[in-house]
């Protein structure tokens, strides 16, 4: 599998030592991307009323959490126990497992910037890409989106609402990228050379503890360029060779060790 190379490679460096797991990023993500709150009842569907309720958030395997915060534990017992939080957006892999498997080219990695696209109107909902992604970054619309009455009065204009039966995932708030490019054009700047901060996804923007740094991994003027090379930086499941564009960093070795599998005895 050859890897497409891009002049621009949008990426994140997430400092796990700074993430408090507060969840603001997950909420901001849902608001930005028009992810409806999970409601049990569907007042518009009478057939639904005949059968079991839709899922509410109790069913964590049915949620739409493009950005998902995992809790890590060092497994030691009191008082040596330590805990850490790991936010997991889509890794925007350089060599995505999901893209080549899609039978209808609903997902692709072909735009400058290296963001893996997901086109809802093309997706037929076979869920093969979900089976392919080891990060569980892909989510399926098990039910039609349904906002409590009045809450959909104004949705975010940035993202089209998805019908049930299609797969969706984090796309680094791609419309913000498009808008940043338009802004650059308006200002007479080069849309292909955005300054740091001109384009920032909702999660990185809102994070109160500044755990998420976002930028162009290929651009030396962007912080992530250097951060990604830090000795404390690592990527999830690097051994599988998916080459994520999302990096993590932690000074704690036990955290770094949980970024990949080392059971076969080889050293980190």
């Amino acid at each position, binding site marked *: 599998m050859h890897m497409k190379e891009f002049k621009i490679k949008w990426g994140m460096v997430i400092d796990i030592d700074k993430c408090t797991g507060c969840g603001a990023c997950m909420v901001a993500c849902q608001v930005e991307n028009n992810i409806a709150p999970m409601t049990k009842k569907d007042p518009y*569907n009478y057939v639904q009323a005949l059968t079991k309720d839709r899922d509410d958030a109790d069913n964590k395997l049915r949620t739409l959490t493009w950005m998902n915060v995992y*809790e890590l534990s060092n497994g030691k017992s009191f008082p040596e126990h330590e805990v850490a939080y790991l936010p997991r957006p889509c890794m925007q892999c350089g060599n995505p497992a999901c893209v080549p*498997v899609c039978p*209808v*080219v609903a997902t692709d990695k072909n735009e400058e910037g290296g963001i893996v696209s997901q086109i809802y109107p093309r997706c037929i*909902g076979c869920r093969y890409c979900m089976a392919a992604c080891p990060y569980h970054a892909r989510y*399926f*619309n098990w039910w039609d989106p349904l906002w409590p009455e009045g809450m959909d009065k104004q949705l975010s204009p940035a993202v089209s609402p998805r019908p049930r039966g299609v797969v969706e995932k984090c796309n680094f708030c791609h419309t913000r990228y498009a808008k940043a490019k338009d802004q650059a054009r308006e200002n007479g700047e080069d849309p292909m050379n955005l300054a740091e901060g001109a384009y920032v996804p909702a999660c990185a923007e809102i994070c109160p503890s500044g755990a998420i740094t976002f930028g162009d991994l290929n651009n030396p003027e962007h912080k992530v360029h250097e951060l990604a090379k830090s000795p404390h930086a690592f990527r999830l499941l690097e051994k*599988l060779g998916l080459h994520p564009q999302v990096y993590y960093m932690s000074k704690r070795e036990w955290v770094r060790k949980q970024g990949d599998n080392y059971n*076969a005895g080889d050293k980190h």
Partner: protein
Amino acid sequence: MDSKLFPEGVQRCSFGKFLIWSCFILAFFLWGLYAAVLVLYNGIGTTGLDNYFGFGLWITFDLAVIALGAGAFFTGFLKYILKIKQLEKIINLTVIVGFICYSGAMLVLTLDIGQPGRAWFGYWHPNVHSMLTEVIFCITCYCTVLIIEYVPLILEQKQLNKVPFIHALAHNMHVNMALFAGLGTFLSTFHQGSLGGMYGVLIGRPYAFREGFFIWPWTFFLFVISAVGSGPVFTVLVCTFMEKLTGKKLVEYKVKALMGKIAGTMLTVYVFLKILDTWAWATGYLPSVGLTFDDMFYGVAYGKWMMFTEIVLCGVLPAIMLIVPSIRNKPALLYTAALLDCIGVTINRYVFTVQTIAFPAMPFDKWYVYYPNWVEWASSVMIVAYGFLVLSLSYRYLPVFPQERHLNYK
């Protein structure tokens, strides 16, 4: 009352009896239909699937029936291409079984995809790199081929066949059947393989990922061989089941034994390769991604016992039983071996579908256990019921078994 429609010179149960039987099957079918309607109207949320288990019972069911339906193309291949005369006595049945399996699988698939209205995108916007595209192509094409192979059988129905045009048509189709058989073999081999390839290419899923030859991972070939190693004996089982049900002899035992022998040979090859593959995977690939063989299994649901049942109890054992003539020629043992064989291939499809995605690749993630809910079961049962109906009707009105007459009423 419908005796005029029966095949030449055979007897069938009374219409009333047949009606009762049909209604009995129909009951199951309707139950499944209700489930199917729910799925199409409310969405797949009604099933037991979730974001961790995007594939489940349905896909397992599909893969299993497609594998077991392989009897059709392989027997066809042997009869029409390799001209093994013997097989014509059972070829009709293999075609019908194949047709049922494939059409059934396609019905399940339309339920399984979230947007059935876009099913045709697979043709209009194909991604040539995707194994699934290949599957979509081949399955749909091969299903058409099976219909073409099934049609002449229908045309040979006693009354229809009286119409000269139809008679001629049926005749001509028979003449050219070799062509379709060949085409079918080609298509079928490919998608059987592609189904295996689907899992083999999953670089993110250590349980399934395999190296391979050119663009085809090893699972590609393993799936083909395991299919031909089990398809024929499945037909044998179906045939035997019908004999028990109708109390008639439909196919002489030597044919069944022959089918057993064919399957046995393929199965032996398969088991040998499967063991090699598993070994290479466990000692070569897994360590290279920092994993051990033990990491791949968990609790009872995903325990090692399943793998050993698949490879030893339902692989090695039936293989031996089928290739050793003295065993193969004892009906009871042949059927046991056939049964084990089919169970084995089903388990194989199950673990590749479910265990593959159940394995938590991220160390801080955990195993989840997947339970299909009644909707998935019902809709699968619907397909089985559908198969029973088609088979019952075909048996009652079509000349499926050329030998039936002289085997029963000399």
